[in-house]
C-alpha cells in the first residue's frame, strides 16, 4: 500500500487500511486475528506500517491474546470476518463482564450478500447478546475515526468495544484525513491484580453482570448526549434512520429526506430515535441484513416502517433503497451471471478432487479454495459447513451410514483450516473411532490461499514471513496415535496417492494423508521467503 499524498495526512484508503492507520496512530501494542474476507487487509496493512501484527491459529485464540494485552493495560485490536466471531464467541461473551485496563477493539467484518462467505449472519446481534458496545462506520474516514473512538471508549468504560464493518466499508476506497493526537497516549503496560473483575467464578460473575448492565445504561446516556450520531435536517414528510454503508445509499436515493445516521448502534440512542421519528410524518428504517434496528425501535414503541422481507437478503444499494422507500416488492431484475471462480489451472487440489471423484468417495469438505471441488468438473464434495467441520461431520457420517457407504467417507481439509479447527476433530477421531475406521486428507498447499496467501502455524513463518515455530501435521497425527500417516506430493506421486487412498478406505483403521504441494500462486514467494530465512540463520 502506498502513501497517496505527500503530506501524509490525506489518502485514498480502503476501510481496512483506515483501521490499520488508526491503530498505528493510537499506539496499538498488538493486532491479532485470523484471515477472513473482508477483514484480512487490516492486519497486513498494520504490519506494513510498522505495527505489531500476528496471525493466530483461530479467532478464539486471537481474541484471548488481544484480551490479555488489554488486561495488561495496553491497546489491542482483534480482526475477523463475521463467522470468525462465532469461533471467538465464548471469550467474547464473558470478556464483556470483565474490566480491561487498556483497550480491546473487536473488529467484525460482516459480508451481507455473501461475496465470499458461507452465510450472511448479522453480527449486530452479537453486540446486543453479549452487551458489547458497537460502532458502525459508513466509509474509510469513519473507519479511521471510529477505531480511535472505540479505543477511547474501551479505556474509558473498561470494556471491549466492537467495530462492525461490512464488505463495502472494508474494501471500498474513500478519502481519509488523518489526525494525530485525537486520543490520549497509551498507558504503560502493567499488571494489576483484580480477580473480582477478571476471574469469572459465579460469585464474581453475578455482580459483574449487574455492573455490565449499569455500564450500558450509562453508555446509553452518553450515546444519547454526545455519541457519534448525526441528525441531518431535511423533509418533514420523510425521515430515515440508518447506519453504516446504508447511510451512503440513502444519501443517493433520498437526498431530500431527514436522516438520523447512527454511528454507535449498541447501546442505541433510543430516545433520540423516538424524537426523530416523531419529527417526521413517516419514519423509515434502512438497514442491511436483519431487521435489527426495526425490532429495537418497535420494542421501544417507536412507529417506524421497515423494509420488505425480500431486502433482508443480499447487499443494499441506492436502487434497492429507492424500492424500499416506495415499498416496491416486485421481483428485481436478475443480473446476468458472470464466470464463476474455479481452481486455477495446474492447482494441486485438482488432482486430489479428480482422484476422490474416481474413487467415488463421499467427501466431507471444508472451507478454502478447495471448496470449489463441489463445482464442475469435479462435483466431488458432499458437505461444507464451517472451519474444521470436515472431520467431525465425516466421523458422524461414518458412525451412521451402512458399512459399504461408510467406507467411502473421506474428510478433506486444507492446511490453514486444519490448524484453525481441525486438530480437535483429529482428537475426536482417535477417541471415538468409527468401526470402519476413517480417512482424513489434508490438502496442504503451504498457505492460506483463499484469503490471499497468508501464513499460518503450519508454514513456520509469521505474518511478516519471518521464520518462527512450525506445526508439523504428520508429527502431530503420529503423536495422537494415528496409525497410518502418509505424506506425498499429489502432482508427482499421483498413482501413489490413488493407491494409498484406496488402501486406506479399505482398512478399518484411522489414516491421515497429507497431500503436500505449494499453491501455484504462492510457490514463488514461498521459495523467496525460505531463501531469505535461510540466509538470516
Amino acid at each position, binding site marked *: 500500500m502506498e502513501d*497517496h499524498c505527500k503530506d501524509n495526512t490525506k489518502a485514498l484508503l480502503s476501510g481496512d487500511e483506515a483501521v490499520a492507520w488508526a491503530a498505528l496512530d493510537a499506539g496499538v501494542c498488538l493486532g491479532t486475528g485470523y484471515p477472513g474476507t473482508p477483514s484480512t487487509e487490516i492486519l497486513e496493512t498494520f504490519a506494513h506500517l510498522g505495527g505489531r501484527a500476528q496471525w493466530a491459529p483461530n479467532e478464539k485464540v486471537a481474541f484471548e491474546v488481544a484480551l490479555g494485552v488489554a488486561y495488561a493495560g495496553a491497546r489491542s485490536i482483534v480482526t475477523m470476518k463475521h463467522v470468525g466471531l462465532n469461533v471467538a464467541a465464548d471469550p467474547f461473551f464473558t470478556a464483556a463482564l470483565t474490566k480491561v485496563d487498556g483497550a480491546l477493539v473487536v473488529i467484525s467484518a460482516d459480508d451481507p450478500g455473501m461475496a*465470499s462467505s458461507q452465510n450472511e449472519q448479522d453480527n449486530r446481534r452479537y453486540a446486543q447478546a453479549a452487551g458489547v458496545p458497537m460502532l458502525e462506520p459508513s466509509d474509510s474516514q469513519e473507519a479511521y475515526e471510529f477505531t480511535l473512538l472505540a479505543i477511547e471508549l474501551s479505556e474509558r468504560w473498561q470494556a471491549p468495544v466492537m467495530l462492525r464493518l461490512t464488505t463495502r466499508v472494508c474494501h471500498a476506497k474513500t478519502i481519509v484525513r488523518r489526525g494525530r493526537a485525537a486520543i490520549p497516549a497509551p498507558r504503560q503496560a502493567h499488571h494489576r491484580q483484580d480477580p473480582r473483575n477478571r476471574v469469572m467464578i459465579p460469585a464474581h460473575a453475578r455482580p459483574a453482570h449487574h455492573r455490565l448492565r449499569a455500564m450500558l445504561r450509562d453508555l446509553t446516556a452518553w450515546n444519547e448526549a454526545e455519541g457519534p450520531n448525526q441528525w441531518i435536517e431535511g423533509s418533514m414528510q420523510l425521515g430515515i434512520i440508518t447506519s453504516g454503508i446504508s447511510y451512503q445509499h440513502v444519501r443517493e436515493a433520498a437526498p431530500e429526506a431527514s436522516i438520523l445516521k447512527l454511528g454507535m448502534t449498541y447501546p442505541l440512542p433510543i430516545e433520540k430515535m423516538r424524537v426523530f421519528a416523531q419529527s417526521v410524518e413517516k419514519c423509515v428504517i434502512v438497514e442491511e441484513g436483519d431487521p435489527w434496528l426495526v425490532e429495537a425501535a418497535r420494542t421501544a414503541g417507536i412507529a417506524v416502517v421497515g423494509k420488505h422481507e425480500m431486502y433482508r437478503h443480499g447487499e443494499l444499494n441506492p436502487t434497492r433503497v429507492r424500492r424500499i422507500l416506495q415499498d416496491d416488492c416486485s421481483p428485481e431484475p436478475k443480473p*446476468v451471471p458472470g464466470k464463476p471462480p474455479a481452481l486455477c489451472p495446474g492447482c494441486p487440489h485438482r488432482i486430489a478432487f479428480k482422484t476422490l471423484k474416481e474413487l467415488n468417495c463421499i467427501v466431507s469438505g471444508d472451507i478454502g*479454495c478447495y471448496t470449489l471441488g463441489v463445482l464442475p468438473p469435479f462435483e466431488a464434495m458432499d458437505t461444507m459447513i464451517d472451519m474444521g467441520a470436515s472431520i467431525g461431520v465425516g466421523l458422524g457420517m461414518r458412525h451412521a451410514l451402512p458399512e459399504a457407504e461408510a467406507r467411502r467417507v473421506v474428510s478433506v481439509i486444507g492446511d490453514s483450516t486444519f490448524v484453525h479447527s481441525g486438530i480437535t476433530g483429529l482428537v475426536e477421531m482417535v477417541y471415538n473411532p468409527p468401526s470402519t475406521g476413517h480417512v482424513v486428507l489434508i490438502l496442504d498447499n503451504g498457505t492460506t490461499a483463499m484469503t*490471499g496467501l497468508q501464513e499460518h502455524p503450519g508454514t513456520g513463518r509469521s505474518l511478516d514471513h519471518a521464520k518462527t515455530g512450525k506445526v508439523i501435521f504428520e508429527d502431530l497425527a503420529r503423536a495422537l496415535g494415528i496409525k497410518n500417516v502418509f505424506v506425498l506430493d499429489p502432482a508427482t506421486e499421483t498413482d501413489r496417492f490413488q493407491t494409498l487412498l484406496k488402501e486406506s478406505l479399505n482398512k478399518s483403521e484411522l489414516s491421515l494423508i497429507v497431500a503436500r504441494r505449494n499453491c501455484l500462486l504462492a510457490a514463488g514467494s514461498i521459495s523467496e521467503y525460505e531463501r531469505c530465512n535461510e540466509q538470516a540463520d
Partner: protein
Amino acid sequence: MSRPTNIVIAGLGGQGVIKASDILADMAFHAGLDVKKSELHGMSQRGGSVSSDVRFGEKVFCPMVSVGEADYLVVIDSTQVPVNAAMLAADGVLIEPAQIDESKLTNKKSINVALLGVLSRSLPFPAEAWHEALKRNLPEKLHAANLQSFALGREG
C-alpha cells in the same frame, strides 16, 4: 451539486481490473476530486468475473455504481460485455478490447492500461496526470511498457 462520473471496469480475475481502477481512482484523487471505488474481493481471485466501480466528482456518497448509471464501461475481456452491459447508462460509452490493436502492445498484460488510455480521451484530465498515476501504482520495471500501452489507447 453536479452528478459524479460513474465508471465500471470489468474483466476476469488476473487481468488487472483492480489495478486499472486503482490507477483511475488515484488519478482523480490527485486531481483534487472526491473519489470512491468499490469491488468485491475473495472468490474473484480464482479466475471468475471481476468488476470494479469508480466514482468521482464534487461529492460522492455511495461507492458503487448503480445498474444503468455507468457513464463508461471499460471491459478488459470481451466475454464480460454481456455480463456487465446492464451497468451502462442509455448514453453511456462502452470501451472494449477490440479498440486496441493488441499486436502493438509491448506487454500483452497491459491491455488494462491501454483501455484506460482509450477512456482518457473522454475524461478532462491531462496526459501527465495519468502518467503520474500509472507510475505511483506500478513497479518501476513496468513503467515503460505501461506508458506505451497507455499512449496506444489514448492516441489510437
